[in-house]
């Protein structure tokens, strides 16, 4: 059995709930394992009373199918946030706090313009996430190579292994210039690679994302969105072939925990 991290009274994380979000429980658990005090909060409660946000230092937009992914993945929820909570979320980031979007949460952050962000966050819409080239939802494990040293969630020198499970995970940009901006602005957080760190085609890049992009960060490095699910690799027996690695525990390090631990550590040190 896994021992939970020592819960620090200082670090409080909110896991957003809304119709169709369905990875909130395991995300809540991963945060608690990392030592945060986590709470799942329905979006209606935040819209009723935005000051709830002040209690937290981390907000996670978890995976799922918010509002059924109707129209497009994450679209209806991002529209709801834009019209009711955008300023509050922006203030949360400006206060130096952390935002993490996983899978559907990543789609929401991109579609409301928080990612890749920048001066005109919210209005800027030259990056999007669309249907996988394979045309279908797929659940499979991928290797991720960090691309930045300035995102607080990421260990820059550690390649990690996590599952993706999505039908709309292909990161696209409006044009070459938009892609160039992502690169030069240090927005690319993770790329899909093979075991040896090399980029490749499907299934190494499971959705044919441009430039193998698996995750994005903003200019502050305190907002991260990614398609893969770190909350699904927080114990050794979640590795897809853990039964082969019993005698080599070093090969099986619960890579998902790095992201949650780094977030908690950052809050402990800085907030």
């Amino acid at each position: 059995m896994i021992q939970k991290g020592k819960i620090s009274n200082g670090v409080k994380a909110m896991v957003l709930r809304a119709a169709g979000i369905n990875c909130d429980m395991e995300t809540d658990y991963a945060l608690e394992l990392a030592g945060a005090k986590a709470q799942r909060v329905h979006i209606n409660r935040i819209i009723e009373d935005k000051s709830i946000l002040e209690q937290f230092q981390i907000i996670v937009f978890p995976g799922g199918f918010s509002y059924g992914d109707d129209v497009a993945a994450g679209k209806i929820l991002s529209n709801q946030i834009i019209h009711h909570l955008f300023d509050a979320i922006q203030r949360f980031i400006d206060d130096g706090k952390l935002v993490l979007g996983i899978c559907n949460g990543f789609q929401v952050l991109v579609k409301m313009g928080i990612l890749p962000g920048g001066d005109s966050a919210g209005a800027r819409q030259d990056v999007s996430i669309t249907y996988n080239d394979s045309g279908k939802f797929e659940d499979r494990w991928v290797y991720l190579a960090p691309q930045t040293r300035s995102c607080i969630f990421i260990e820059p020198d550690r390649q990690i292994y996590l599952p993706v499970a999505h039908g709309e995970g292909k990161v696209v940009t409006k044009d070459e210039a938009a892609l160039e901006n992502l690169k030069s602005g240090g927005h690319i957080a993770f790329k899909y690679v093979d075991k040896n760190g090399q980029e490749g085609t499907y299934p190494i890049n499971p959705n044919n994302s441009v430039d193998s992009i698996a995750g994005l960060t903003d200019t502050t490095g305190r907002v991260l969105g990614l398609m893969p699910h770190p909350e699904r690799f927080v114990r050794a027996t979640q590795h897809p072939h853990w039964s082969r690695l019993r005698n080599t525990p070093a090969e099986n390090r619960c890579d998902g925990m790095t992201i949650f631990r780094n977030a908690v550590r950052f809050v402990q040190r800085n907030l």
Partner: protein
Amino acid sequence: MRQWRFEIFNRPGSADVHGNSVLEDINELGISSVEAVQSAKVFLIEADFDGAFAKRLAKEVLTDPVCEECYIGRSGPPAGLAKATLIEVHLKSGVTDPVAESVTSAIADMAVAVNNVRTARKYILLGELTTSQIDTIAKKILANDCIEVVMIGSEAEPPSPHLKPYELQITHWPICDLDDDGLVRLSKQKDLFLNLVEMQTIRDYYKQLGREPTDVELETLAQTWSEHCVHKTLKSSVDMAIDGRQVHFENLLKETVFKATEELNKKWCISVFADNAGVVEFDEDSAICFKVETHNRPSALDPYGGAATGIGGVIRDPMGTGMGARPIANTDIFCFGRPEIKIEDIPKGVLHPRRIMKGVVGGVRDYGNRMGIPTVNGAIYFDDRYLANPLVFCGNIGLMDKDKCFKNPQSGNLVMVVGGRTGRDGIHGATFSSGEITHEYETIFSHAVQIGNAITEKKMLDVLLQANKAGLYEAITDCGAGGLSSAVGEMGKELGAKIDLEKVPLKYTGLNYTEIWISEAQERMVIAVRDENLHAIKKIFDDEDVEATVIGRFTNDEKLVLRYNGQKVGELDMQFLHDGGPKYSRKAVWQSPALAEPAMAEKDNYNDDVLEILSSYNVASKEWVIRQYDHEVQGSSVVKPLTGIDNDGPSDAAVIKPKFDSDKGLAISCGMNPLYGDIDPYWMALAGIDEAIRNLICVGGRVDRIALLDNFSWGNCTRPETFGPLVRAAQACYDGAIAFEAPFISGKDSLNNEFSCEDGRQIAIPATLLISAISIVDDINRCVTMDAKRASNLLFIVGETKNELGASHYYKIHGHLGANVPRVDLQKAPKIARKISLAIADGLVVSCHDCSEGGLAVALAEMAFAGGLGIEADFRGLPKSYDCSRTDVQLFSESNSRYVVEVEPANYDAFARMMLNLPFGQIGEVTQEKSLIIKADDGKTVIQSDLDSLKQAWKRPLSW
């Protein structure tokens, strides 16, 4: 008010994934003249907003800023040389449109109100097409007649969705003066599916009352007495002739499947065959419930919607068991016709198996994934007798508090309907699914198709779990077949209920009281609530935008009273409704077929045979399906459906860890082999039980905590020769459950799976029994998978290989059936299972694989390529029966109760000691060479193949 039209296209250069997949399907139909397909989303919005807002809406909500562009109004055909055909697919009036609901709420977020939103799909086909080709493409690929309307090149908009309000008109269906012919005619005219004796019983009841029934009363009786709801065939008395010997059952189920459970009397069985799902203990605080349902007929008509509502419906079973469980896993088992069958060989009224399979997988994927429930176990079986009657088994497992496993509705409680609204969808589903399908059913029973919206169900689940935790309701059940009629009727069985039908929230106006009462609209549940809790429970539901409406009260007069605007429209005695049906008796016959073993020459080499079996559809990798299901959501997976060095080997069973704070696990498996039933359904059923149990044991499930579920899918059982095999299978269920001490905890049957073709030909499915099984895993860290782990480890086989090639895949690829169907030694099989289970618990086993379809050769090949390691086997060590001398028998016999086990050399002695007195032997070892080598018992190499060829043969057939 203005009707706005928005058409959303992919931007040039952005892949049109949907259009491309339609093009692929068109090519598969054999139409090659289409060069390209463009797809577009269409939104029809009736509202007062102006052009400026329309542009804003298009930009901010409807269109992706990077990949899409919007055209406001109706776009014409694209410029260019190629001929373009415009096709639009609209939902029929009244069909649930979840996207429209979301768009309405998104516009509300922008502080603008709309009157109505509808969505449609538009396709532009580029290339020369004849009218009949267009018709074929529209019918076979783009649209489903049951729920959709196709508009080809038309300028007209589909009919307005506005419906007339309903005015009460109480309808009576006179019955008291009808003779037998009249009764039969009435039953047929009204699609009641009640037989003559049932109609007579009802007539006599009303004669006694001295009045005529209303329509809603007869409909309620028809639903409640339907095969689907009461399983009259399986509970009937049976006179059976088995090879001339007479056997009698007063109540078939009670004397077979139930009886085993009763006799075993396990204290860890909490609630069996009583509630919506069977309930067993998990640990000190929690219980597990499990239910598997079929959704065959809806899936035949509308594969996507039918399968989606199949999984959606079975998820509500655990949600409605006891005081409600939290769903933690789905299972899915399908039977289809062969995917390569020619279009011209498909009977009228039947969809192509490939389309059915894609639709069914898509439906389960979209509903299960949206619910956030991992789909962890399943199987797919192909046989052309499933062509017109595909089988779709959907299962769901729930976790619940042990002290909340029973409901307690009391008189005076409020009756509340919660979740989705009621519409015309799914009217007559229960009765429809009890009859046989003909080529005309597509049109006649289109209303029986239900349309699901997973997010409505997910929202309802979220709030119900909170209300359950707060203890705010007294009872809960789901609205499944029969809708409110069966949910309220069942919950108020001992009490009585008074319902005001006009209070039921509707999707649209115009429904009459009967439609409201029997609609099988999805995503609804019924709860019983005390007055003092009404406010608190309403708040929980309101807080998350889920509807919960009081529609009546449970009473204490044991009467079901239905009213509309205060006027009584129906009244039935609960006792007559539930126990008034006639007792049934049936005849059954089983004659052992005269079969013989084929004469086949022995060969020096069986490489081609093993490759062909690996690439036969039933054995081949199901990765294409498995990966479309989210099998890791909830973070609970331990043994995933795919395993091994490249995460693509076939796991024997799934293991999940349902609680974050405990390392206790649950193993989930299934067993099914309809082909064996062609020789003897008794051995088919036992093979299914043995296989399901083997699979649990292989991953580390406890042998003394196995619970089983049965799902009988059969043909028309009024024919004694069709019913006989079912009785044989039920007898085997008793024998198997007793031998393994594995009680059945729940079950379901689906009969009349037959199809009358236009030319009078009748297609019946083969006798099909699905066995689903669960067991407890004490410590998930001790679980074992099937992939070979390390070179120089030793391989053992435990269990005897016998001369049992009857109905094997080896015979199948050579066009034979044979006679020697695999049997189960009921003495030895449980002992072997127990010892393997102990060896795994002791950590003596590093991998373990069940030996089933394709026999030992296939099991060894799978272990090797899943582990990326070679295997060298030598059959001199094979434990076998005296008549098992032929090499092909040793390689491919599908004898039951066999396990291939990999053991580290250091554990040889301990493992061998544990297997003492069982048939077991060392048959080889794991090697570094990437090849499978099998030597016959004369030392000659009979199979030698590199792993890549084996794996490719296995992976290719279903990698669509």
